């Protein structure tokens, strides 16, 4: 029997459509290499392009293209370089900074970027009504905390003031050697006052000023298009003061969420840069295309937190026993392609020459661990209360939790129960301190040991363990007053020594940042915070 003719026709259509799809064309990467168009994936949609509301590290890439703070970063080691501020003076006591803004800094609509824009932006950030989680980036500014808490009514008393259009003065309540670094970060980026106010109250969120078509920015690139769920396109901003040296013409920030989809897009020449590398593909790239795989130390620490308010972990010997029973080197080596670094303390190495290696440095000593646990009343783990080891759903967290479970059982005789909990539930309950033991982690906001140690100050918002030690607090605060680097590091060493003695948390290892990078990408360097300014980046095929 023959096929009925309408069906035959449809079949033919399908075949033709398939064949038509078979035209081999130049890939986006090859085309981009010729036209200086970079294709980078950032792993998902940013909620907003308002720099004062930004949420994740990956989205910071878009902000770095769109905005520029008073300072910028050297792409190799991230030391602060002039941004909108051409130069600055620091007072002898380290409390007052005077910034001189460049005359040719412009917004993407042609307005001049002035010191008043920065003053306005800080006022918006600190307004008690402005709901953003990043106010702590301003804590060191005189009067900032009081103003944002509503205890100080007059913004004039806050230490950020435009002296004139091109001079900005910032006064601190205590010296902060990392201030120049902070000034380049997203929270300190300026917003365009007229645009913000044209769309609603200056301190309201979700007014729509940062939508495509409205948004005005001051960085090397300007927003051209935002196709939701697909890509954000930025084009070189001809008004940028340094436009002459910017070589990329466009950046397409792809919004692929799935690591496997992303990797396939990289392989078919759709992406120059990926946000992730699937764990299963690390070994393959390391072997077959090492020039395309970038694995670099990341300023972060993977850790577990104890609930210090509840037994059994209110007992320091138990915490110490749990820490000593972990073979961190083996734990880190369990994922060899990720090049994880076993932790000896909380602060990852790499901030100048600071790296904690004191008497309380984390080590593996099962005999001592068993002795301490017995001394605490649990010989060979007998009588130890049932303990959960909760973690937020992820293959990676599960992997490490299973290894910890085995190590504690083998070395302490204590069996903890793994509890795999959906992300939002986990984070909500973790902050409410419902767990006796919880998975945590920290990524430094700036390249300074303070970024890690200050988390554990008494009453800190991220101090989930509930740690409170006045001696530790005093040292961490005092370190900021110390302008001599070596002396400052010595104080940090003493503070970290106390922290690693008390062990409110047990650091396990330091992460690495992993990306796939097309060989044509130039002027991009692995660095500790995974920040990559686009001003000096370009594409060049061999």
């Amino acid at each position, binding site marked *: *029997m*023959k*096929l*009925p003719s*309408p*069906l035959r026709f*449809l*079949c033919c259509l*399908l075949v033709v*459509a*398939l064949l038509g*799809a*078979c*035209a*081999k064309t130049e890939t986006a990467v090859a085309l981009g290499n010729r036209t200086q168009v970079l294709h980078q994936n950032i792993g998902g*949609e940013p*909620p*907003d392009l308002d720099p004062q*509301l930004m*949420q994740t590290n990956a989205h910071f890439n878009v902000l770095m293209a769109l905005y520029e703070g008073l300072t910028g970063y050297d792409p190799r080691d991230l030391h602060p370089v002039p941004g909108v501020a051409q130069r600055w003076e620091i007072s002898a006591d380290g409390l007052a900074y005077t910034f001189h803004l460049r005359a040719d800094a412009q917004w993407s609509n042609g307005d001049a970027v002035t010191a008043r824009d920065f003053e306005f932006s800080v006022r918006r950030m600190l307004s*008690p*009504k*402005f*709901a953003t*989680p990043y106010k*702590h980036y301003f804590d060191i500014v005189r009067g900032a905390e009081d103003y944002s808490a509503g205890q100080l009514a007059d913004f004039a008393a806050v230490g950020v003031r435009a002296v004139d259009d091109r001079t900005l003065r910032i006064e601190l309540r205590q010296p902060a050697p990392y201030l120049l670094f902070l000034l380049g970060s997203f929270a300190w980026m300026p917003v365009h006052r007229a645009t913000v106010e044209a769309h609603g109250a200056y301190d*309201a*969120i*979700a007014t*729509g000023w940062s*939508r495509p078509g409205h948004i005005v920015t001051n960085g090397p690139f300007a927003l051209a298009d935002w*196709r*939701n*769920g*697909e890509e954000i396109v930025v084009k070189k901003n001809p008004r940028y003061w340094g436009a002459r040296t910017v070589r990329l013409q466009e950046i397409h920030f*792809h*919004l*692929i*969420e*799935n690591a*496997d*989809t992303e990797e*396939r*897009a990289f*392989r*078919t020449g*759709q992406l120059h840069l990926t946000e992730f590398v699937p764990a299963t593909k690390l070994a393959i790239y390391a072997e077959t295309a090492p020039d395309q795989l970038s694995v670099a130390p990341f300023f972060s620490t993977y850790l577990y937190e104890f609930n210090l308010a509840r037994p059994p972990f209110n007992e320091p010997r138990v915490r110490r026993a749990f820490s000593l029973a972990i073979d961190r080197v083996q734990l880190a080596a369990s994922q060899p392609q990720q090049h994880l670094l076993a932790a000896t303390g909380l602060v990852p190495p790499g901030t100048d020459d600071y790296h904690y290696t004191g008497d309380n440095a984390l080590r593996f000593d099962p005999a001592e661990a068993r002795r301490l646990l017995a001394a605490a009343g649990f010989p060979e783990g007998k009588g130890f209360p049932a303990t959960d080891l909760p973690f*937020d759903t992820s293959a990676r967290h599960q992997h490490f939790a299973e290894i910890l479970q085995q190590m504690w059982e083998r070395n302490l005789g204590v069996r903890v129960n793994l509890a795999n909990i*959906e*992300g*939002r*539930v*986990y*984070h*909500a*309950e973790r*902050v409410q301190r419902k767990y006796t033991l919880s998975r945590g982690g920290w990524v430094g906001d700036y390249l300074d040991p303070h970024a890690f140690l200050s988390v554990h100050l008494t009453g800190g*918002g*991220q101090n*989930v363990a509930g740690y409170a030690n006045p001696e530790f607090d005093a040292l961490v605060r005092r370190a900021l007053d110390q302008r001599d680097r070596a002396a400052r590091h010595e104080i940090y060493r003493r503070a970290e020594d106390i922290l690693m003695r008390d062990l409110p948390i047990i650091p396990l290892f330091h992460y690495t940042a992993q990306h796939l990078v097309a060989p044509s990408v130039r002027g991009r360097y692995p660095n500790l915070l995974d920040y990559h300014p686009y001003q000096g980046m370009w594409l060049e095929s061999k």
Partner: protein
Amino acid sequence: MLRFVANRLLQAIPVMLIIITVSFFMLRLAPGGPFTAEKAVPPEILRNLEAHYGLDKPLPVQFITYLGKVVLHGDLGPSFKYSNRTVNEILADKLPVSLELGGLALVVALVLGLTFGILAALKRNTIFDYAFSTVGMVGICVPTFVMGPLLVLTFGIHFGWVNASGWYTWQDRVLPALTLGFVYSAYIMRLTRGGMLEVLTQDYIRTARAKGASETRIVLRHALRGGLLPVVSFLGPAIAGILTGSFVIETIFQIPGLGREFVNSAFNRDYTLVLGTVILYAGLLVLLNLVADVVQVWLNPKLKFE
């Protein structure tokens, strides 16, 4: 028939209300909220955010306010995650993509499913039948998350004919439509084959043959109409599923459709976006089930609108 349709639409109102109510409260009773993050948000900021979105009011008040806006103004509220966009905007943005993908997949499913289903029934118990049935079983058994990457590996990476992901050119539509369509075509094929086999042995087909009607006419005019009945009742809800998107396909191929928003919004506790998608999906299901019923009556003379 008008009365039947009007009646069914009236019945849909309480159904929709129940769906909205249950989803609203289930969602709000789930631990964690739209502003929960690994880095804890300071309590005073959280209060500010909750006040901005009206989350500080008692739950029943929030529910009434929400329902009022939805029913009176069709306003599904602002999205919690995408602070600059409303749920109406997001749905208006993503639904057409899902409709396009679903429509194309449906064409693939119907063309492949009906053709091979009819052929298998006509060539019953021959090598054709076995071959089609095997392919059909494979289509049902191989999940889309295996099929999709396999197609990409072959046509995207090995041959370099199409992109691995994205939704930019018409070539980008080929693999997702095939992947999604293939699964449904397998079901349609098996249902068509079964339906046709049952019909082809009926007296009226023999009568038609005796009267000298051509084989094409017998199959298309007489047999197909009855043989399609099981397919039609399957297609009602299936089309709703196909059209509102498939999370898996949209994730594998990075398609900016509704399926991905639906699943992600639940993970993000984006209350309004979850409810918006639920309402849309439920509405479509109700509507398409109604269409399926109408079509069935039209195809089957034994049924009446009652």
